[in-house]
């Protein structure tokens, strides 16, 4: 058994919220750079160059990459040998988010009630996903999720007979409807299988996989590559103003499902695909 004081989690999450909102991961930066070099549209290239410049300014001057610093989605993979002390884990995560968003000059975008809509003024609560895994390590992934693209995400409850063509159509429909609203170039997270909520979670988690890493399942890898090609031939382009850079990657996760169903979730993320991972 290993003991972790939740104070350590508070400080980690505070730092991770600030880091994620000012710096993108290397794979994202490379993908953006490659896209700029390969874009044929003049306006598209100009927009991609501005996005590159935006990233540089954000890191250098500590201005958030995007003013929508997101709802804090936190994945906790908890080794089952760990015993937490010093307080409630959930409270610690929220305290980390509170400190990160207030001390880091990040935008407070959370309302306490979806219909009464009063701002909580500290960006809490976070959306927390717990997973119990083997070992004595805690792996934290902080994903500040912006809502321009979140609003364009979709869940489709397909029929088994719809098959792989149905999945493709679902993903392409979601991307085309998202168009300029989701701040392309996007990253497309797809969850296939499970139940209604499980496929959405698979899709969200797929967004945290590096954009240059393909699925290890051969047919899924092919599907990722095929969908990316089709999405990029849609012509939506950077900023939705035309070009061949509509998406930087399609990341698909799958899970067993019921004999009667084929759930598909498409979680769209803009080019500010933020996530920071830390292991304690």
């Amino acid at each position: 058994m290993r003991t972790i004081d939740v104070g350590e989690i508070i400080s980690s999450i505070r730092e991770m919220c600030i880091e994620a909102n000012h710096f993108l991961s290397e794979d994202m930066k490379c993908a953006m750079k490659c896209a700029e070099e390969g874009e044929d549209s003049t306006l598209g290239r100009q927009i991609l160059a501005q996005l590159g410049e935006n990233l540089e300014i954000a890191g250098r001057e500590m201005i958030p990459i995007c003013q929508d610093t997101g709802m804090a989605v936190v994945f906790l993979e908890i080794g089952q040998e760990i015993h937490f002390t010093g307080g409630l884990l959930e409270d610690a995560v929220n305290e980390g988010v509170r400190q990160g968003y207030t001390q880091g000059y990040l935008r407070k975008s959370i309302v306490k009630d979806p219909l009464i809509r009063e701002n909580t003024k500290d960006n809490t609560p976070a959306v927390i996903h717990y997973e119990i895994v083997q070992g004595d390590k805690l792996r934290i992934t902080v994903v500040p999720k912006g809502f321009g693209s979140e609003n364009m995400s979709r869940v489709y409850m397909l029929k088994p007979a719809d098959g792989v063509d149905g999945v493709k159509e679902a993903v392409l429909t979601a991307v085309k409807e998202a168009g300029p609203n989701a701040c392309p170039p996007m990253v497309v997270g797809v969850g296939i299988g499970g139940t209604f909520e499980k496929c959405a979670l698979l899709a969200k988690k797929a967004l945290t996989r590096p954009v240059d890493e393909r699925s290890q399942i051969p047919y899924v890898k092919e599907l990722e590559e095929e969908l990316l090609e089709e999405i990029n031939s849609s012509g939506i382009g950077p900023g939705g103003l035309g070009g061949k850079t509509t998406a930087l990657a399609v990341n698909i996760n799958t899970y067993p499902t019921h004999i009667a169903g084929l759930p598909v979730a498409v979680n769209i993320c803009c080019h500010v695909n933020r996530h920071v991972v830390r292991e304690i």
Partner: protein
Amino acid sequence: MRGRMERHVNAPLTKETAAELKAGDYVYLTGIIYTARDAAHKRMYEALERGERLPLEMENNVIYYMGPSPARPGRPIGSAGPTTSSRMDKYAPALLDLGLKGMIGKGKRNGAVRDAIVRNGAVYFAAVGGAGALLSRSIVSSEVIAYEDLGTEAIRRLEIKEFPVIVVMDAEGNNLYGD
């Protein structure tokens, strides 16, 4: 239709200037604009329904759909990119009919907004979504002028210099995103 042009334009806009702008033009805006997004629009719309005055005059003004991140000490504003415009579609036609000449946001608009743009000789601009750090550098000053309790959603008066936008819908109803 003439080719796309790069232009330097002052805000507030005049009807004449608005009429000269065409979908696809790359525009650098300088002058005074105002921010308002979801909550401020809802509040203005409800004020109009009650027959009350709005906290800012619409005539010839430009509204930027934006809620900034907080400014660090010594800076005018934090990250300041556009939010999705379609959420303001319910409210925009009423404001356009009051003389609003320009809107800056990102993404598609509905038919009612497009009709109101044409009817009033206005313009819809897009700024580059997700470029909030870059765009913040074209904002010289920022002052909350109404609805301060809404936090990031308050109405702000922005002084901007060479703020880069693209004309998406012009006064003739042309739409750069296509139909």
